[in-house]
């Protein structure tokens, strides 16, 4: 009896608690929600959804998927083979060259290793490398160097440097600084400190990121081929423009197979080396 009374008393006195709202004013909150909803509605209306075209598209999809169910590796095999080999060499060359260029940029873009001006210049350069999507860079290089794998390799090198350089710099900025101090007190020069203090700590990251970038570069080589930068993408566009959906299907299956193979190989390497 007494306990129940005490419990009731506690409930009466219990203090209410709600998480503090992110936006203080209820009016402002309502205004934001309503205007976002209105904008989305208006935006959706400008997309011009046309039921007629959707119906037509569905019947064309039938042809496409029909072709994909009967992949044809044979008719265009010489083209497909050339395209695949070209993509593979583009990938390998671009990843290797990109890695070599990205290491100095990545070290230079690490706040804990270099003086301020060097840091700003390297960070800026890496930002420029990453500023444009691969397709735009590829269009630019195709315009500069003409159709073919050279423009493709250049595109992938730029993308690889931007990607590896930035992530490497982030890895370097997270390293334990105590071993670096220890090397400094042993009279080690800056390059020695990098080789003995920094690289051992970031090597697993470099290896992992490079394997990942290898994978991305292969897939990108198929995409940038669409704008004329060589590789399997070029073969793919040709097949599309000839309405040879059976060959398209064969190419897509091969791309999937290569990506799977890359996944298996990189997983294996990671287990062996890290």
């Amino acid at each position, binding site marked *: 009896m007494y306990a129940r009374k005490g419990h009731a008393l506690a409930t009466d006195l219990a203090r209410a608690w709600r998480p503090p709202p992110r936006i203080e004013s209820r009016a402002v909150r309502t205004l934001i929600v309503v205007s976002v909803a209105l904008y989305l509605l208006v935006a959706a209306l400008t997309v011009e959804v046309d039921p007629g075209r959707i119906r037509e598209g569905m019947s064309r999809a039938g042809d496409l998927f029909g072709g994909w169910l009967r992949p044809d590796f044979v008719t265009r095999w010489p083209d497909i083979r050339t395209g695949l080999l070209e993509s593979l060499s583009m990938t390998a060359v671009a990843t290797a060259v990109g890695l070599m260029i990205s290491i100095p940029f990545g070290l230079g873009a690490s706040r804990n290793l270099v003086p301020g001006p060097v840091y700003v210049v390297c960070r800026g350069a890496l930002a420029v490398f990453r500023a444009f999507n691969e397709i735009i860079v590829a269009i630019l290089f195709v315009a500069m160097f003409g159709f073919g794998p050279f423009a493709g390799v250049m595109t992938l090198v730029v993308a690889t440097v931007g990607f590896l350089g930035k992530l490497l710099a982030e890895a370097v900025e997270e390293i334990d600084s*105590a*071993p670096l*101090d*220890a*090397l*400094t*007190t*042993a*009279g*080690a*020069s800056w*390059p*020695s400190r990098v*080789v*003995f*203090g920094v690289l*051992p*700590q970031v*090597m697993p990251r470099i290896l992992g990121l490079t394997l990942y970038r290898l994978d991305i570069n292969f897939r990108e080589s198929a995409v940038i081929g669409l704008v004329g930068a060589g590789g399997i993408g070029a073969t793919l566009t040709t097949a599309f423009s000839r309405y040879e959906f059976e060959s398209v299907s064969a190419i897509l299956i091969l791309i999937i197979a290569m990506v799977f193979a890359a996944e298996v190989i990189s997983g294996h390497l990671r287990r062996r080396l890290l």
Partner: protein
Amino acid sequence: MSTDRTPEGSAALEIEDLVVRYGKGEDVLRGVSLELQRHEVVGLIGASGSGKSTLLRAVHRLVEPTSGAVILDGVNLLGLAGPELRQARLRMGMIFQEHALVGRLTVMENVLCGTLGRTGFWKSVRRNFEPNDVEEAFRLLERMGLDGLEDRRCDELSGGQKQRVGIARALIQHPDILLVDEPTASLDPAASARIMSLITEVCAEDGLSAIINLHDVPLARRFCPRILGLHAGRIVFDGPPSALNDEILTQVYGEEALESYVGVRSEGTRVGD
């Protein structure tokens, strides 16, 4: 092993009116002066934040002093740069709190890191170290009781083993002075006492001088014939362990910390025996 480069009688290291200020904030060191005699082992005690670590780091120019002088063999280290500074650093081996080894390198590589100040860059990249240095590294590992572990990765070692690799790395520099920052911070009491006797034995055998930062007063009393007390960036005590009394410890550690110090002392006595 120690080469007598300093003339007899002169100090191994002189620190004059050293001031360290971080940014615009308060001074961490407010004019520290001390003379470290040759073959002398000094224990530096003080509360966290009193500037003990900063003092050692400033002597090595890991932290840039705001003013003052650090004189090694008549040369002010604060005026040196580039190769000259690196040569001077070689002569002051530093042993770190938490050992500061490169975990993914082998024990041998970590010890040989102590020779980077005198090994050519490309030779070191190819791990083509001087045969004399390699031989000495093997001997130091034996002396530290780490023989047979040269090919193990450092992150596989125990805390005490890592600290001994750190000592070997400092000794292969052929230093005249050891600067030791809280060598026992990550060790249990028994391992702490073993590391301290190892360091002081090495100093005696090789004729080195040392400044050893310690938060553990009983360890400092037991192993260091001269003790310096640092409080808020100033030296407030300089004398033998016998002169350390509660009044002085209050000055070093502050009023409120005395009680916890007493705790440390009783625990330390148990460990010491």
